[in-house]
């Protein structure tokens, strides 16, 4: 399997404070890689680097075989065509209907004719079981529906790589389970690779093939989910036990 993400010796600092230190990990094609850690561990900073929102000042990041530090603006835009992002709060545009939100990348990135875009939107809504929300506005959806609609927008262009930032935030366990199953189902159906940034243990256990554990801006563990669950690293064992207790 090819590496879809390759991070080597990444350092980052904000306002003189070191946020990431010597971070190295990779994610494989067709797998769900979970980047986990407690609050302030550097998960979001890593994600923003992977998405090209923060410049790589020191270290190396390759996404889908392209070195982010060497990408021009045009190259970065081309790379965005191959990425989908599911944001923590959905980030759907409230002034547009669900259908218009999903059609946005199709129309503006893909320049896809209206007649095709309408069918593609219906198809994506069918994939996330939200066919009836075509004409609804995001404010008319529940939290779970909002996440599923945002997921439909994230996969509108059939990207080979999907980033999910805390997809479980604000969801009840049943909605979270249903969203996890949906992500897994889409991964299998569409053959996409998923980078999951989360601290929901149930979600990690259900979906992740590989785990990268961050603590204070450093990678403390990288390996399979089974290895992570049986790890003797105190911080990681603590993370699983404490978070499990909290979630129970």
């Amino acid at each position, binding site marked *: 399997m090819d590496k879809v993400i390759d991070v080597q010796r990444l350092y980052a600092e904000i306002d003189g404070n070191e946020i990431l230190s010597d971070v190295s990990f990779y994610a494989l094609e067709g797998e769900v890689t979970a980047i986990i850690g407690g609050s302030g561990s550097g998960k979001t900073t890593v994600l923003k680097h992977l998405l090209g929102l923060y410049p790589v000042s020191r270290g190396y990041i390759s996404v889908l075989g392209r070195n982010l530090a060497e990408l021009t603006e045009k190259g970065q835009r081309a790379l965005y065509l191959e990425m989908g992002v599911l944001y923590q709060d959905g980030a759907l545009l409230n002034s547009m209907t669900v259908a218009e939100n999903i059609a946005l990348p199709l129309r503006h990135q893909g*320049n896809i*004719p209206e007649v*095709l875009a309408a069918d*593609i939107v*219906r*198809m994506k809504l*069918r994939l996330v079981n939200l*066919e009836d929300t075509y*004409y609804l506005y995001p*404010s008319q959806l529940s939290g779970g529906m909002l996440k599923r609609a945002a997921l439909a927008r994230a996969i509108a262009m059939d990207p080979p790589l999907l980033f999910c930032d805390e997809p479980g935030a604000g969801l009840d366990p049943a909605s979270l389970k249903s969203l996890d199953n949906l992500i897994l189902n889409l991964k299998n159906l569409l053959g996409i690779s998923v980078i999951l940034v989360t601290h929901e243990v149930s979600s990690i256990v259900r979906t992740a093939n590989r785990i990268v554990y961050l603590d204070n801006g450093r990678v403390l563990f990288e390996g399979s989910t089974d290895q992570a669950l049986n790890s003797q690293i105190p911080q990681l064992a603590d993370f699983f036990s404490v978070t499990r207790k909290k979630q129970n």
Partner: protein
Amino acid sequence: MVRKGKIKPPGEVLNLGNISCRHEDGTLFINGSILASGTGIFYRSIGKEVPALKGRVRTINLDGLTGIDSAGVTALYHLRGLLGSEGDITIETEKTSIKKKLDLFSPLGLEKVSPPPEGSLAERIGEKAHWLFANYLYGFINLAANIFYWSVSDIFKRRTFREGEFVNQSIKIGVNASMIIVFMSFAIGLVLAVHSGSQLSTFGANIYIVDLTVIAVMSQMGPLITAILVAGRSSSSIAAEIATMKVTSELDALNTMGLDPVRFVVVPKLYACLFTMPFLIILANVSGIAGGATAAYLTLDISPEIFINRMGRIMQNKDLLTGFVKSQVYAALIVLTGSFYGFSVERGAEGVGRVTTLAVVVSISLVILADSVMGLLFY
């Protein structure tokens, strides 16, 4: 005549580099990959060839296809629809991966959801009228009553004040607006005096420039210019602040903490606006008259001593009183309009922009309307 350009190989219908189509014995062979990024160009280009192919294609062969996604599959099914009916043309491929994608992304059988019914003209007018009364008229009166209640009752409950908030708001609404008000009033007083001075000098009535400037600035221009500038600055900022608080659930948080958002957010702004507005109007009057005096000295040779001497005889206590009454009415209108639009925000970021614009437009309109009414009352 020799036609320039690439000569197409026999049967080739389309060649876009990564996608090519060939027509042979009723079969349309599609090679390459149809992915979302190239689907738009493919569909538009092949669309131009449809009239020539219509009725001549029985099979669409995808054996030469190396990749396809949901957009590509949708484009293929739409292409088949353009070339003939479903029963007439078959889509075939030996490749299992392509077959799987065709099944998964087939747009056949997709249910079209009907848009919500719009209702008859009478229903829509009724709905709009109800919305106008329920949201605007009732909402505005309700908020005004709420603000009035809290602003009066809080005068007697000083311990409930947010420490420093009154001063903070007074600086934001009043002090920070003073420079622009001084500058604009001076400029308007100057221009007013220059233009009217040239007319007065033709009648030898130069000295009346003082009367004209003082009366115009004190009774109309000073208060109105001040109110328009404060409405433009503060009404928009109040609306945007409250709207953002509503969108980010900060107002809900205040409510659930047992704090009334009107009392907590609006009342300090109202106090600050009521307090600073008279000073701003005095500042505007002084600047406007100074502008007029400058113009009188430069164009009509009326010295500052003569100007001030005559000014003392024209000015009346009534002018100061009406200026004060106007300042209080304008202040209340500006804060009420800004907060009303802030509380009425809907639909996130776009809604914040919309209510901010509305707050400025409506508060300036109300200020001018109130000025006209008071102008007639205090004539």
